[in-house]
């Protein structure tokens, strides 16, 4: 159904090719999963395979792409290509143009030259396959990440194509929501759809994947049936990382002084109770993993540590001071918070200036040494003069950490620090955190990844419905 022959591609105004001599063939009814480090060219590959690259992007193209027996250059336009290929892009929000779920899918169906009766029938079918029936009148900003991904998928399914290309459809989702997407895709494959899936989470999709392709620096470095490809230890480490190899100091924090003490904390958003009666103590030098599904209150809880949110009831004591009596700026010296999406903070022209921003704000002395050491810790010394948004996702994640580390907070909180990273990049991030712990920092991470929580943290706190339901360190 899709054939790439010796495809190379270089983006305009760049020298390094994004794709180099890619040869790939996707048979009817097959599912190929493409994986690899961030910045390896996975998104470029999905654009090439869908023909979008040849129609919409400039730059240098070599080789040929054949979709459904026809060379992509022979398709007249994107909408002509869209008669054969459905693409789900990585940003779900940007794929929602209308203000209710049903409208979104219906409007996609209206442009396929179908009769009104067929449209209604297909609409009902798609809503059912993607479990969106109950959400049909919701607006995009009232949907969770997983629900948005399902709407983007549903609107693409509405096109009724046999070929589906999906670019990281589960990157920001928890285990439960990922499982749901995996089930939907498996059903679609059973119905005979041909699927090209860009993903990191092989474990969740292994049942349906016929071939695994590893892309590194724009080149395919391994390709074949998964069990063969995974015999190579290096590939295995990337696709199915073993976090038990992460070395660190044994948890000896039990007797140290408390740095955060949460007392009977409640928080309400309007009428919705997001946190109810949370009490816990975190001690100096601990490595804590906060786990739980989307919407369980993890992010709401940590935002209280630096007073981005104020308690509706109860108290939060950070290093002996009640946060009620501190300003956000003063707390920023004690508690560093790295948000899930690092792109929410980058605005400077170079990596170095980006890190310098927080350092200057807090008036830290010996700024240059501090910044150099943060760059070194994050493994970004060589990228110091680059534009932050040119970095790969993995590097941007580490830059986000460096920005906060340079401010020298004793407590570092990270919201989903391994989102969108491959196994090696995730381990790199975790090792950075372990080193910081050795230096005496207290580390708190929010994560969906059970393996990381179990192997890397000294203590796991599980939340559900705004409550702590288990805490391995409370004994």
């Amino acid at each position: 159904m899709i054939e790439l022959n010796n495809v190379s591609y270089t983006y305009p105004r760049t020298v390094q090719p994004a794709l180099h001599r890619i040869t790939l063939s996707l048979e009817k009814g097959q599912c190929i999963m493409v994986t690899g480090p961030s910045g390896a060219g996975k998104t470029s590959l999905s654009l090439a395979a869908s023909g979008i690259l040849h129609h919409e992007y400039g730059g240098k193209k070599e080789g040929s792409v054949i979709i459904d027996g026809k060379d992509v250059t022979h398709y007249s336009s994107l909408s002509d290509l869209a008669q054969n290929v459905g693409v789900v892009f990585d940003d779900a929000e940007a794929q929602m143009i209308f203000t209710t779920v049903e409208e979104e899918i219906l409007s996609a169906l209206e442009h396929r030259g179908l009769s009104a009766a067929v449209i209604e029938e297909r609409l009902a079918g798609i809503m059912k396959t993607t479990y969106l029936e109950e959400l049909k009148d919701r607006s995009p900003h009232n949907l969770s990440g997983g629900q948005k991904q399902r709407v983007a998928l549903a609107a693409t399914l509405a096109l009724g194509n046999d070929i589906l290309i999906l670019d990281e459809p589960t990157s920001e989702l928890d285990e439960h929501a990922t499982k749901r997407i995996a089930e939907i895709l498996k059903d679609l494959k059973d119905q005979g759809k041909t699927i090209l899936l860009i993903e990191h989470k092989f474990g969740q999709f292994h049942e349906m994947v016929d071939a695994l392709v590893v892309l590194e620096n724009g080149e395919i470095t391994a390709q074949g049936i998964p069990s063969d490809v995974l015999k190579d230890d290096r590939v295995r480490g990337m696709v199915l990382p073993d976090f038990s190899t992460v070395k660190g100091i044994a948890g000896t924090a039990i007797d140290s002084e408390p740095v955060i003490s949460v007392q009977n904390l409640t928080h309400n958003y309007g009428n919705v109770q997001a946190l109810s009666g949370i009490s816990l103590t975190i001690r100096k030098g601990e490595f804590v993993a906060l786990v739980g599904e989307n919407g369980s209150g993890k992010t709401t809880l940590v935002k209280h540590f630096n007073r981005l949110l104020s308690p509706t009831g109860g108290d939060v004591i950070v290093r002996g001071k009640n946060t009620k009596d501190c300003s956000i700026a003063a707390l920023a010296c004690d508690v560093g918070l790295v948000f899930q999406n690092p792109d929410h903070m980058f605005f400077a022209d170079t990596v170095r200036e980006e890190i310098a921003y927080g350092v200057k704000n807090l008036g830290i002395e010996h700024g240059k040494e501090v910044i150099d050491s943060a760059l070194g810790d994050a493994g970004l010394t060589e990228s110091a003069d680059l534009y932050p948004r040119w970095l790969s996702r993995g590097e941007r994640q580490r830059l986000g950490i460096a920005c906060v580390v340079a401010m020298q907070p004793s407590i570092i909180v990270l919201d989903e620090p391994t989102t969108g990273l491959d196994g090696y990049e995730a381990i790199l991030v975790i090792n950075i955190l372990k080193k910081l712990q050795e230096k005496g920092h207290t580390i708190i991470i929010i994560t969906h990844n059970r393996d990381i929580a179990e192997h890397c943290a000294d203590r796991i706190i599980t939340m559900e419905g705004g409550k702590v339901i288990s805490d391995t360190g409370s004994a």
Partner: protein
Amino acid sequence: MAEILQYVHKDAFLHRLHPYTKIAFIIVVSIMCIIATDLVFLTLMVLAMLAVAAYSRLLAELLQQLKLIIVMSAIFILITIITIPNGEILGYIIPQGVPVIGGFIPVTTGGLTIGIVLTLRFMVLIFAFQLFLMSTQPRDLVNAMEKIGLPIDYILMFIIALRFIPTLQIEGQRIHEAQLARGFNPGTGFVGKIRSVAPIAIPLVSNALLRSNVLGLTIDMRGYRTGKKTHVRESTLQHRDYGVLFAMALACTGYIVLLMNQII
């Protein structure tokens, strides 16, 4: 969070009207309030908008923007008092007792009246437009605008601009929080305020530009611009639409009579 200019899903009077009827409603109301200068008439129009909102169960949503309207009104009135002094002097913004600068900026009946007229007009326009957007699904809006003959690119531009308001609000909030956690200083003085915009505005704009790429591809892949379209679930003009149109025609007649007799 207050959702500005968004469709609110309900099953009430305005929602059941045909988009054409509602477009006619905004046009009639806009013309009426722009031509009229009578305080009592304009006050009645504001009350009428509120009554329509209450009848359509949209009053609470409409009043969410009240704070913004009050601030804007205060600015309007202040500007007209300063710029259009006319008629009797009611008093002074800076009391006469204050030495040297006392007695400046007189509050005149003329200036005050023009300020209040502008405010009332502004309220009628905002309320009417909001009622229309809150009660019309974007899909129906697109259909109606297409039938009127507007080019599809402009229609898409219009509805996308509306659709992404809450998204940008939420994103702006997240960026603000991320920068606060880095010791972001909201800035003092004029230069400080301008400088403090960069850490918020640059990520917001960069992310939005990145997003527009995917948005553009999505529009083309779904064939929204091809012009081929099957029309499903199209509403037709119902009895209630004719009723409303008739009532508006009556109101227009009455309005013209009032205008001719120089009552308003």
